[in-house]
């Protein structure tokens, strides 16, 4: 670096010159240099405070003891603290009380979206609308196999449901099956079919689907007179259901309709409560030590099921 002061600015240059243009050796602005030193200092401070240097098995921990997962857990705790008043209140409310309280209702719906998406939507679809032809029940309509009251829905989630219809391939001849298919289609369209009805009564369909063919909710049998089909309204599909049944063990082509049990514990509790009310007793007097073994399976907690029951009820079909 030559000390060349031949230029008028009296600034030393680097001695480099191209076509008469000299490279001057002006210093960087001081504020800029200070910023540079400051950023260097920040790096050092950062390295001391935060995990930074990778070692063989681990890394330096930093004085703050900060970790990503710790920050995540802290934030999660904050969210939970915000939700806690609602969750605590939900725990002591019945599903009917939740429905009546607009604030708790909105909270339940808001906080059930993820719960529903994680546990229910795989079969029943978002918004209670399963993919067309998937054969899962629509939750958004007003047709309920096991009842559409908020308690029925809660029970269906807690205890799960297993559909049941015998296979008739060995019990009916082709003509009888044709006649029954026609009867079912006519019933849905509100057309009377005397011959079909006679066959419906003699072949035992009436035992489950009821004298008026409207289904029996206690058994979960389908209503054959409405416009909603459990599986399909297509004649071939109706025939398939009659021939192979639902969950018929010996039939390989049978339809499968299984809703898993989400809380054995809650199912037992709900049943005990309903029984107590039926007997004119106060459900608060039930001795749960007697009723529960303590090892009942719980895939979802009681509060979660309440929230889901409310959520499903509010799809638009709840009764």
């Amino acid at each position: 670096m030559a000390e060349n002061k031949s230029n008028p600015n009296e600034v030393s240059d680097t001695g480099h010159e191209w076509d008469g243009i000299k490279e001057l050796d002006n210093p960087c602005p001081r504020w800029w240099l200070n910023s540079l030193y400051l950023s260097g200092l920040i790096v050092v401070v950062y390295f001391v405070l935060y995990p930074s240097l990778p070692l063989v098995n681990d890394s330096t921990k930093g004085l703050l003891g900060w970790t990503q997962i710790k920050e995540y857990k802290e934030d999660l705790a904050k969210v939970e603290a915000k939700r806690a008043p609602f969750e605590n209140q939900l725990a002591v409310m019945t599903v009917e009380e939740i429905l009546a309280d607009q604030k708790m209702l909105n909270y339940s719906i808001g906080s059930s979206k993820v719960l529903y998406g994680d546990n229910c939507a795989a079969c029943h679809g978002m918004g209670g609308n399963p993919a067309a032809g998937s054969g899962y029940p629509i939750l958004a309509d007003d047709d309920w196999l096991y009842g559409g009251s908020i308690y029925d829905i809660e029970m269906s989630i807690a205890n799960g449901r297993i559909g049941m219809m015998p296979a008739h391939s060995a019990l009916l001849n082709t003509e009888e099956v044709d006649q029954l298919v026609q009867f079912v289609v006519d019933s849905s369209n509100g057309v009377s079919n005397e011959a079909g009805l006679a066959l419906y009564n003699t072949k035992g369909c009436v035992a489950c689907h009821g004298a008026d063919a409207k289904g029996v909710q206690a058994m979960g049998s389908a209503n054959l007179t409405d416009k909603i089909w459990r599986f399909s309204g297509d004649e071939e599909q109706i025939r398939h259901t009659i021939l192979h049944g639902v969950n018929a063990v010996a039939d390989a082509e049978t339809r499968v309709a299984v809703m898993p049990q989400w809380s054995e514990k809650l199912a037992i509790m709900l049943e005990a409560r309903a029984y107590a009310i039926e007997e004119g007793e106060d459900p608060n007097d039930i001795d749960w030590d007697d009723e529960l073994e303590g090892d009942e399976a719980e895939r979802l907690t009681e509060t979660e099921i309440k929230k889901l029951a409310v959520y499903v009820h509010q799809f638009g079909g709840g009764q």
Partner: protein
Amino acid sequence: MSEKKDNLVINVDEIYAETSNWHVNAGGIKVVAKRMAGRFRRLKWFGMSVWLILFLGPYFRWNDSQAILFDIPNQQFNFFDITVFPQDIWMLSLTLLFFAILLAAVTSVAGRVFCGYFCFQTVWTDVYTFIETKLEGDTPQKANKFKNAAWSINKVSRVLTKHSLWLIIAALTGVSFTAWFTDAYQLWHDYLTLQASLTAWLVLGTFTVGTYVFAGFMREQVCFWLCPYARLQGVMYDQDTVLPSYDAERGEPRGKIKKGHLDTQKGSCIDCKVCVAVCPTGIDIRQGQQEGCITCGMCIDACDSIMEKTNQPTGLIRYASYKELHHNKNAVSIFKRPRVIIYSLILMAALAGIGYGFSNLSPTEFKVVHERQPLFVRLSDGSIQNKYTLKLLNKTKQPLIIHYSIQGLDGASLHGLRGELTIEPGKVVPVTALVRVPADKLSKDLVPIVFIGTVTSMPHLSIKYNSMFMGPK
């Protein structure tokens, strides 16, 4: 070829010659500007005092709420009589447009007015240097003398006073800014009892350090090197823009007064350098228009006072356009300049939009959201059901009692709502509504339907929303 090269060498020397007396202060020299009274000094005080409204606004109550409060958790912005909800935020963009264009318009007419009289960097720096010059001397000579003096109790106490005052102003600035977003008195209580949130402390800390460093130490360097407006505003000038300028034709050749008499052979400039001494950015206006000039007019005040003392007409340094100084032409009337006309039109359009917005601020906001999945559901009796979420925002100060109904779709019935709904001020209560239509009443897959929110307590606030009903194709 060689001829060309020779030319080049000559050109380079010219460039050197031109830059030889060009000096840009990159922070190496501390600017100590002498303060002189005058028209532009008073104008500067007026411009600066506008900040007092913003500075003290959080401490005033207005209609039972804080005069300036950007209440983010409750989603409403109070500015004196105006309360704006996020839904009305489009007016904010028009307001921003207005001020952005105002900046451009003012710049094209009269230069960096914002920089010179109103910019917070200018204002805070001015307050800081006011304190500094009072304590350490108001000319570079006095300041230098003070700096080089041996440490004495007097010097230490002056330096301590200066920095304490600076820090107090910086901290108050931080508190005022924080108080725009939260209750001012509660904030003071939280700060004084050390209970303020981390955010509040961080904002206070950032503003305190920022103000202290920017206004106390960096000063004009911020305008030179950090500020984008300073660069932008320069390109908005044209030859008709009036700027504080030195009338070189009248002033040159400059020369000192000798023996108390003006030399008639010389120009008006007596080379007293007062214009340089008063400049807060440390430039010499006599070198012409330059990036450091924030057009604050301090040199005009200074020069005028000298002209008066030397019995010469004032205005050697004055607000003048390039055309006036270099072509002896009067500047074009501002209303004949296309850019002024265009800026004014945009300004008026923005103002009209803001005016329309405020005169039509609806006291409620009603939205009906159609369920997306499923779009519709077939019910057991064959009818079609659609699900909607009704959201009504209450922007009034009283609770509203709402009754919802539907209109415009034959055979449709409304379900799922429970009578009347009370909505508290500033709140939205989303409710689910189900609309059922018998299948034979539906002619198309998409039919219009109107939702009506009747405010039973104040029927004139009732509001409609046009939505659609969807069915199978």
